[in-house]
């Protein structure tokens, strides 16, 4: 079995399950393959949530470390990708909280206003106002909106990541729409 291909959406198929099982049994090589295959997914999600490349890289690293610590505790009740998203989202939140603790956190503005960012974000310039607004939503609403629209998950899948019911996800999105009404 070769390296799993580095697809954006991880295959929840046997390969990943197999790697997870081997990693849980202490196989370092399998764990290496596992995070290598999922690094892009983690990083891209972190980028969407934080809007800042260096933050995204830091978050991705944090997630890799957390995975190393917690893979043994993964119980397979949810899909591995959902679990991964949950860890990533937690890391995003931890980071943003840690940042906001700092006194003059001018840099935080960089991630709510991507138009100030480097050229790499030019693609997003048109949608930047929307992104800025979405990233300012309360955490739950933001997570729901980004999971469903940026990560293109179904409400049920998003619910699995967020650890709530499908209907709750729908409600968060509804609330988010209300908050964003002026912009949409």
């Amino acid at each position, binding site marked *: 079995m070769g390296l799993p291909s580095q697809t954006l959406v991880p295959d929840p198929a046997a390969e990943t399950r197999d790697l997870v099982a081997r990693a*849980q049994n202490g196989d370092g090589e399998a764990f290496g393959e596992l995070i290598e295959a999922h690094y892009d997914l983690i990083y891209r999600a972190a980028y969407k949530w934080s809007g800042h490349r260096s933050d995204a890289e830091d978050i991705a690293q944090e997630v890799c470390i957390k995975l190393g610590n917690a893979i043994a505790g993964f119980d397979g009740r949810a899909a591995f990708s959902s679990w991964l998203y949950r860890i990533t989202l937690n890391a995003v939140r931890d980071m943003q909280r840690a940042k906001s603790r700092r006194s003059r956190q001018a*840099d935080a503005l960089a*991630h709510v206003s991507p138009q100030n960012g480097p050229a790499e974000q030019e693609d997003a310039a048109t949608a930047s106002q929307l992104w800025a607004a979405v990233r300012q939503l309360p955490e739950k609403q933001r997570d729901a909106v980004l999971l469903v629209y940026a990560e293109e998950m179904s409400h049920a899948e998003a619910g699995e990541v967020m650890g709530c019911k499908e209907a709750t996800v729908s409600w968060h999105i509804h609330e988010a729409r209300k908050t964003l009404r002026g912009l949409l």
Partner: protein
Amino acid sequence: MSDDMNHDPLKSLGELKAPAPSERARERALGAGMAAFEAAKTRETKKSAAATQGTGWGRRLTSIIASLKGNWIMDLRLPIGTAAIALLILPLGYQLYTTTSMTPAQGRATGPAEIIAPPPEPAPATAEAPAANLQASQPAPVPMLAEESRANAPAAKQEMAPMRDALAQGGAGADTDFEAAPMAQDNAASAQRPAPAFGATTEGYADLMAEPGLPSIIMTQPVEPSGDQFTPFDESRLKVVADEPVSTFSIDVDTASYSYVRRQIEDGFLPESDAVRIEEMINYFPYDYAAPEMAEVPFEPIMAVYPTPWNSKTQLLHIGIKGYVPPMGEDRPSNLVFLIDTSGSMDEPDKLPLLKRAFGLMVDQLSANDRVSIVVYAGSAGVVLEPTAATDKAKILGALDRLGAGGSTAGAEGIELAYRLAEEGRIEGGTNRVILATDGDFNVGIADPEQLEDFIKAKRDSGVTLSVLGFGRGNLDDATMQALAQNGNGNASYIANFREAQKVLVEEGGSTLQMIAKDVKIQVEFNPAVVAEYRLIGYETRALKREDFNNDAVDAGDIGAGHSVTALYEITPVGSGAQMVDPLRYGGEGAAGSGDEIGFLKMRYKLPDEDVSRLIEVPVTPELVHGDIADVGDDMRFAAAVAAFGQKLKGSSYGAMSWDAIAALAQSGRGADEGGYRAEFMQVLKTAALLKPDTCAGEGCR
């Protein structure tokens, strides 16, 4: 769902493509993940086999809570009615709690947002009202409350500390308002008073507004991208030789400025101009100057004069010195005390975790006759590791590993403790040094900056030196860093990533640790018969008065083993036609000068254990002049390119080169580039060119 609009703008969220992660970050992350995995595995095998049977800690934890819950109801026999009432009261209480805007008293970043949102309204009296009345009825309590919040609220405290220099007043005001505002509101009659305070709150916290729940987007006004502080300075001006033939400055072997500038540029920001110190940028790169043979004359100047790349009519006087490198066998014992900031703000991947790995690297370099101790301040205070022989690596690394960032109890006597340990473990004839690692929180126990500098100076005179390593961004207090390191006869370095840590602590470990000469001053006297005008590039923050040169009491920069230091003067030869200053009509002042020497270089230094300075004198003769910049060594061309880069970043008023021309010059001076630093500089240069494009291309812009 409500997705039934014709065009759903939220759909466009799916279109954002994240830029590719940098390979370095990716590798770092994967490596860190692997390390964590291995560490977890080791822990796991040490424990009983139970843990590997698929029950993660998360699940076990929930089950404990669940069973506790069950027991509660059973054992305490809570009447169902009480529970029902509680259910009713809780939301009500919450409602009350939020509408009376008392939430901010808890002080986290969401706080100010909620203060701003609802207009102040008289709220129903709460249990605290009488007490509040007492305080709110006098306008005075503000400073007192500030003190209180400093002592009580950990979150508030943490935000206070780094702010204290620049924003001391605004910051104190903002924190106090959290407490003052709700109290004053409870006293309905005085509801007007807090109004100005709200203004202060919004200002103090405007940059924290990224938190959710914000009703308006007005807050997202962009401000300058960094909260770091730098000593402001003006570029050194052009001097006329007839008026001021002598130029004096202290050497500077720090490199913090380049690391900082590089990081800013890599992240897509142009650094503020005070952050660009050209001499530190030039000195960041290793240069292959010939090193002297013996420790008594620890360095020899290498000089050359060549045409200025940005002005064909002027010339650059290049002065390079390299410190003596003791032979390998000579292992000077070191006694190192790490003084580590563990405030909550250090809890970021590029701070404490990076610091741990960096010190791990350094410890690997130490040998049996070295000693290490660790003291922490801010988050938790105290001695983490008593002086330990460097061979006991497991113990040292274990102590480093256990460090955690968090909390914000004042680590009062952090610095005194560190110096006490350094003195207890003092090694006569060795290096005794405190290494302070921080992200800008200098709350080391001595609050008054002057007093702190005096303290460090006194300790320096007793033989214990101080180096400062800066981490992270947004909070970095570069000015204090530099001041402390200079007073402590040490270095200030900025550690942006693991590679940088390796450069500072391993490759330059020798020079960072072992001082070979101190108080090194340079004085150049120009010959008015040959040179009309001159300008020192960089070293603005290191300028000395002419009379300071011979005064041994005046402190100056120190040089470590193998350090190289470069200084550049742009000189305008007499009769070149490039003079910026017109000659005086009535002339007659100053010495006319004679001879064909360009100038005269004098350097003063003290050997590490001496208090009387020694002097090196070398004339700058016409033989040093090269007609073409292609004739000088790679190192000199590269240094000139870095100077041009620095000047361009600063928006210097002298000499503009196009990015392409700078890149070409740097490329021509790349040389062997063993550490890859010059290649990296080329990348930084390219990125900077994108961030601040030349307005027109080609020669015409010059």
